[in-house]
């Protein structure tokens, strides 16, 4: 079995996001970038399945500019066997990523595609679902537990009512939740080994995919600052303020 894991390079979750002065986006210069956290869980799960003997190969794929290679390299350091970088320029929306991944799946013919449930930068939560539609494969989203049973995958999902366990036929798309596992650390010797693992570079334009954005971004702005609260002296004052200032009663 072969598992393809899609990963995304995003601004590190510890960095405080700053909006550009002209409202055209967020500042990415001099900002620490990392792998999208749930994508780390996706890689970890794929590597675990491989270590259990149920998969033969784990391939990490990402989409973006030259620097994304670093992110792919990190996946190789924690156990992926080889990498693919599909090179693009500018903003790439989830639909375009899904179409690119569809082409990669056509070429690689994996049995499973794993990825994070959503990216922490745009919070879209669309790529996995759209890829499933494009491939006409079953999908299991928000996975917090995955069991491989021959040609069937048993996936536990976290939903509002509790835990839901479903079965999907392989091949399938799985999007991973943070609770799925605890990603391992890359050890120094494995980082060294990862430097020698191959990363294939493909230009998105060569895949014949239209990656033009379908959505026009008008403006990015910071959420309004929360005003400081005040202390009231009495119940009467509180009622009066709720009536006349907040106008909620």
């Amino acid at each position, binding site marked *: 079995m072969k598992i393809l894991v899609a990963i995304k390079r995003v601004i*590190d979750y510890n*960095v405080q996001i700053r909006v550009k*002065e002209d409202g055209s986006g967020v500042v990415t210069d*001099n900002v620490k970038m990392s792998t999208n956290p749930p994508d780390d869980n996706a890689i970890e799960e794929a590597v675990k399945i491989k270590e259990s003997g149920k998969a033969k190969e784990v391939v990490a794929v990402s989409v973006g500019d030259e620097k994304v290679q670093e992110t792919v390299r990190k996946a190789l350091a924690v156990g992926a066997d080889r990498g693919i970088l599909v090179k693009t320029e500018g903003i790439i929306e989830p639909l375009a990523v899904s179409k690119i991944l569809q082409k990669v799946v056509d070429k690689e013919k994996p049995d499973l595609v794993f990825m994070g449930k959503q990216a922490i930068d745009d919070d879209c939560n669309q790529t996995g679902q759209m890829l499933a539609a494009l491939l006409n494969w079953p999908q299991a989203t928000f996975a917090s537990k995955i069991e491989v049973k021959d040609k069937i995958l048993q996936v536990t999902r976290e939903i509002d009512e509790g835990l839901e366990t479903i079965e999907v036929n392989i091949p399938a798309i799985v999007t991973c939740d943070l609770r799925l596992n605890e990603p391992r650390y890359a050890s120094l010797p494995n980082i060294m080994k990862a430097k020698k693992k191959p990363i294939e570079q493909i230009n998105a334009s060569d895949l014949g995919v239209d990656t033009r954005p379908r959505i026009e971004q008008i403006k990015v702005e910071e959420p309004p600052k929360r005003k400081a609260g005040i202390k009231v002296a009495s119940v009467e004052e509180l009622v009066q303020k709720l009536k006349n200032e907040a106008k909620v009663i």
Partner: protein
Amino acid sequence: MSRESMEYDVVIVGGGPSGLSTAIKLKQLNSNLNVCILEKASEIGAHILSGNVFETRALDELFPNWKELNTPIKTKVSKEKFLFLGKTKSLSWPTWLLPSVQKNHKNYIISLANLCRWLAEQAENLGVEIFPGFPASEILYDEDGSVKGVATQDMGIDKYGNKKDSFEPGIELLGKVTVFAEGCRGHLGKELIKKFDLDKGKDPQQYGIGFKEIWEIDEKNHEEGLVMHTAGWPLDNNTYGGSFMYHAENKQIFLGYVIGLDYKNPYLSPFDEFQRFKTHPAIKKIIEGGKRISYGARALIEGGFQSLPKMYMPGALLIGCDAGTLNMPKIKGSHTAMKSGMIAAEVIDEHIKNQKDLSNYDQKLRQSWLYDELFRARNVKPSFSWGLIFGIIFTGIDQILFRGKLPFTLRHKHADHETLKSADKMPKIDYPKPDNIITFDKTSSVYLTGTNHEDNQPVHLKLKDPDLPINFTLDKFDEPAQRYCPAGVYEIQKENEINKFIINAQNCIHCKTCDIKEPSQNITWVTPEGGGGPKYGNM
């Protein structure tokens, strides 16, 4: 427990200006050498914080063609100001009256973090292996007592010291020579100084704490290339310190404050002095309408020549501010750190090639401009122990008339942890509340540093005596850790009328001030799990 080990010709601890320069110079001298750099930050530059007005002397030697290499060195210093601040007034000191070491017209305003990122790229292109996120936590000694390498920190240990599922043991990195370049108050450097008695016959090391904020300011207040320093308010005559304001590119200014850690009043809060400083009319008018985008703090070396330890020992070298090569009157340590690393590379190359002893470092250092610079600078900082006014008068005579060649050397008498006076003998200081426009509290400031530590790991700030803060330091000094820590790591909390000493280690921005200033030397900073700490951008 046996660990994996990896062998290199040279193992370098720390990816700052000195460590990176060592690596680059080594590969330039002999491209066959295997060189690696361990860095505790999640990426090179993420733990670097510096003013920075950069003198290119060392870089000119390392890369004579650096101007063609797309370096992040862009803004040439075009104008200089020096102000004495009173509470509301300011007096401009004519720049022609500044000693030549404080003139910056040939220098550049840079982000040292970005310069380090650039140096790291050059090093990697030369074949140096750089491992960010791997702190060296332990020194390895050979049977004959010489240093044979370092071990990286175990990863995946929980707060009680047990192995988690993600446990990954540290590994041993063995080198023919190990270079310690951890920066000011490196925790391994500290161990080496003690073990090999490197500071024998030297004065106690002197430190300062430096704060830096990056502001994006109104175009009309921004003068790219302007370098401004101030002395005076809000510090009193007996406290050593001053500010810097560098107008960098993209409407940014680098605004900072440095305070000598030999201050005496335990009620002094360096962080609040810096915040208060920004409310001075001469400063406020520049940053008003602007936005603070970064914050950070780091201890720095101030001891200079008198406190510089021996920099070689069997199997290892101690360089940059891990030893203490900062030039205090110049307020610059980057070019000297780089030079100390380049000298290290020459010594190591000869050591590996011709078995020349590492003690050769001393001779090479003495023949270099680095030694000459530090020698001439030596009397400035100690003269300020007489107060700001006498310090300035003496410095004028020493630096302008004698160019640092007076026939005597003033001494540093005390280590910084010895200078605090009892709280009951010193005045309390009433700091104004932050307005959240110009001045801020520690919490919102630390938030800007992007600091994080995996929370389920052992506390990396170790107390020798866990009861001392409450039983002694609180009573005697009103527990100054609450104030000298720039990140709010230490708190005294009352629970059921009983005082408790709280360590919020996950806030630690790795400045090392507690390790230096704690009056009983009760706090020891050790490396947390790799990748923890601040994530500075262009600091």
